[in-house]
C-alpha cells in the first residue's frame, strides 16, 4: 500500500495569522509543524478558525503579511492550491454533479493527462479501496451521504497527493455511519502513511484519529499534544472543559489535603491550588462514611445504557458528575460517599 503515497510530506506554518477583508481576525499568529506521515487533528468549537487554518495550508487562503507555509523545506506561501499537490475533502464534498462517480474519481488524473488506460486502472483501484466499485457509473445525486463521502476520499487520493486535508468529512452523516467510517478512515490513513490534517469539532473523532491534536479556541492554539496528554493533562481550563466532562471543586490546601465544602481530598502536591479538577471516571462510590473523601446528595440520575450518570450536589456552585452502575444505581435524594483517585486530580 505504501506505493500509493510516494513520499510523505512535512508541513510547517510560520507566523501565519489571518485577517479577512471585512476585518474579522480568524486566526492569531500560528506556528505549527506537522511531521511526515503524521495525522494531526484540528479540534475546537465552531468559528475558532479550524477551516481557516486548513485553507491556509491548502492554499485556498493567503496568510497575512509575514506568514509563511513550508512543504518540507520549500516555501509554498505564494503557490495556489492547483500547484500544491494536496488532496482535499470538503465538508460538502464538492463532488461534480455533471460527472459520474468514476469521472469524479478520475478528474485529477484527467488534469494530469495520464493515459486513458492507466486512468481506468487507477480509478478501479481507488473504487475498490473504498469498496464502491458497483457505483462507478452512478450520478452523484444518486448516492447516499456515506457513499458520497467515499467518493470524495477516493477522488482526493486518486492523484496520490503528498498530503491529505479533510474538513469535517463526517459531520453530514448520521451517528452510526460516522462511527463506521471513522474506523475505516483510521485504518486507511494508517496503511497509507500519508500526512493528514483532519478538522473536526467532535472530540471522539479527534481522539480516535489523531496522532496529535491541536485544540483551538478564538483563533488561538490552546494546546497541542497526543490524545492522552490532551485528555489527562489539559493545559488550560478551556481544554479541560472542552474535552470530555470534568468536575471542578473550589477549596484550599491544608495540611490534611485539599479541603472543600464537601470534604477533604488526598492532595500532596506542593503549591497553592484554589480549585481542583477531576474526571467522572476517577470518582468511586464507597459504602460507608469511614472511607469517604467527599459527601454529597444525588440530585439527578440519567440512564446511559452501559452506565448511569449521576449529578451530585456537593455544596459547590455546580454539581459534580459521577458514574454509577447501570442496573442498580443510587436513588435521587440519597446521600452519597465518594473517593477520588489521587492520580486523577489536576489543578490548572
Amino acid at each position: 500500500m505504501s506505493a500509493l503515497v510516494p513520499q510523505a510530506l512535512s508541513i510547517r506554518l510560520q507566523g501565519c495569522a489571518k485577517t479577512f477583508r471585512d476585518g474579522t481576525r480568524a486566526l492569531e499568529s500560528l506556528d505549527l509543524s506537522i511531521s511526515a506521515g503524521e495525522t494531526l487533528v484540528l479540534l475546537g468549537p465552531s468559528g475558532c478558525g479550524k477551516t481557516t487554518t486548513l485553507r491556509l495550508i491548502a492554499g485556498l487562503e493567503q496568510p497575512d503579511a509575514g506568514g509563511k507555509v513550508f512543504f518540507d523545506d520549500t516555501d509554498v506561501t505564494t503557490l495556489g492550491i492547483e500547484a500544491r499537490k494536496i488532496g482535499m475533502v470538503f465538508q460538502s464534498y464538492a463532488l461534480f454533479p455533471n460527472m459520474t462517480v468514476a469521472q469524479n474519481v478520475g478528474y485529477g488524473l484527467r488534469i494530469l493527462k495520464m493515459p486513458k488506460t492507466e486512468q481506468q486502472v487507477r480509478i478501479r483501484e481507488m473504487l475498490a479501496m473504498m469498496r464502491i466499485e458497483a457505483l462507478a457509473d452512478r450520478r452523484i445525486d444518486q448516492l447516499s451521504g456515506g457513499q458520497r463521502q467515499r467518493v470524495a476520499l477516493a477522488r482526493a487520493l486518486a492523484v496520490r497527493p503528498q498530503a491529505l486535508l479533510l474538513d469535517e468529512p463526517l459531520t453530514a452523516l448520521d451517528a452510526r455511519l460516522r462511527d463506521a467510517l471513522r474506523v475505516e478512515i483510521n485504518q486507511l490513513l494508517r496503511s497509507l502513511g500519508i500526512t493528514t490534517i483532519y478538522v473536526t469539532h467532535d472530540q471522539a473523532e479527534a481522539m480516535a484519529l489523531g496522532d496529535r491534536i491541536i485544540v483551538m479556541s478564538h483563533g488561538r492554539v490552546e494546546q497541542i499534544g497526543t490524545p492522552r496528554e490532551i485528555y489527562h493533562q489539559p493545559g488550560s481550563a478551556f481544554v479541560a472543559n472542552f474535552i470530555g466532562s470534568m468536575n471542578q471543586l473550589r477549596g484550599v490546601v491544608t495540611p490534611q489535603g485539599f479541603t472543600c465544602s464537601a470534604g477533604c481530598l488526598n492532595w500532596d502536591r506542593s503549591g497553592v491550588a484554589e480549585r481542583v479538577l477531576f474526571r467522572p471516571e476517577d470518582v468511586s462510590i464507597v459504602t460507608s462514611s469511614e472511607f469517604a473523601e467527599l459527601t454529597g446528595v444525588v440530585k439527578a440520575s440519567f440512564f446511559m445504557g452501559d452506565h448511569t450518570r449521576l449529578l451530585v450536589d456537593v455544596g459547590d456552585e455546580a454539581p459534580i458528575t459521577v458514574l454509577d452502575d447501570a442496573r442498580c444505581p443510587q436513588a435521587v435524594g440519597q446521600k452519597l460517599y465518594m473517593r477520588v483517585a489521587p492520580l486523577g486530580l489536576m489543578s490548572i
Partner: protein
Amino acid sequence: MAYRKILFGMQLGLCVLVCVFLILPMGLSVIAGLTNNYFVGLDSGLTLRWVLEVWGGYHDTIFRSVWIALACVFVTLIIGVPAAYVLHRSPQRLARWLEELLVLPIAVPGLATALALIAMYGGWGNLRSSWLFILIGHVLFTLPFMVRSVLAVLGGIDLHTLEEGGASLGANFTQRFFHIVLPNCRQGILAGALMVLTLSMGEFNMTWLLHTPFTKTLPVGLADAYASLRLEVGSAYTLLFFLMIVPLLLLMQAIAQPRQKKFELVEDEVVILLSESAKS
C-alpha cells in the same frame, strides 16, 4: 371536499376560457391562410396557394430572420455566459446594480432604443443598411434573458466550492471553466439560448425602425403583408411563422423537463422579465 371540487371546476373553466380567447384568433388566422376566400369562408375550399405565394415573395425574410436569430444566440452566448459568471462571482452590491442596468433595454420601449441606435450609429459606414445593425438591436434586447437565465441556475449550485474542489485536483482556471462551470449551468444556457432564439425571431418593435428594404425580417414582412396585401396572404405568413416557432417552443419545454427545479427558477426570472417588457 365539495368546496374543493367547485373551486377546481371554476379554475378549470377560467383556464379553458382564457385559452380559447387566446388560441381562437390564432386558429382562425391559420385557417384564413389556408382558405381560398376568407370572406366566403371554408366553403370556398382549402388551398396552399397563399402559403406558396408568401414563400415565393418573402422567403428571403424568413431566412434572414433565422440567420439573425442564430447569430444573436451565438453573440449572447459569447457575451452573456461569461458576463453571468462574472456577475455571480462579484460582490453583491455591484452585481445587483449591474443586473438592473442590464434589464434597461427591455424596460425601455424598443422604438426608443432603435431611435437611439440610429441616431448614434446610423452614420457609421454602411452599418445602417447591413443586417448587423438589426443584430446589434436584437443582442441588446435579448442579452438580459441569457444572463438572467444563467444566473438563475448559478444561484442554485455552490459553484465556488465545486471550483475549489477542481482546483484542489490541479485544474487551472480554463479547465475549471470548461469542465465544471459550463456543464453545471448547461440547463440555464440551453434555456437562455432557446429564449433568445424565439425572441429574436419574433422581435418587431425595434426591428421595424431599424430595418431597410434590404434587411426585412419575418415579423416586419408580416406587418407589410397585413398592411398591403390580402388578409389570406398575411394569414399564410402567420402560418409559416407558427411552423417555425412552435417546434422551438416545444423543444424549450422538453429541455425543461429533466431538472424541474432549476428551470422553475429560470421561469420565475422569465416571468419577471416579460412583465417588465410588457409594461413598456
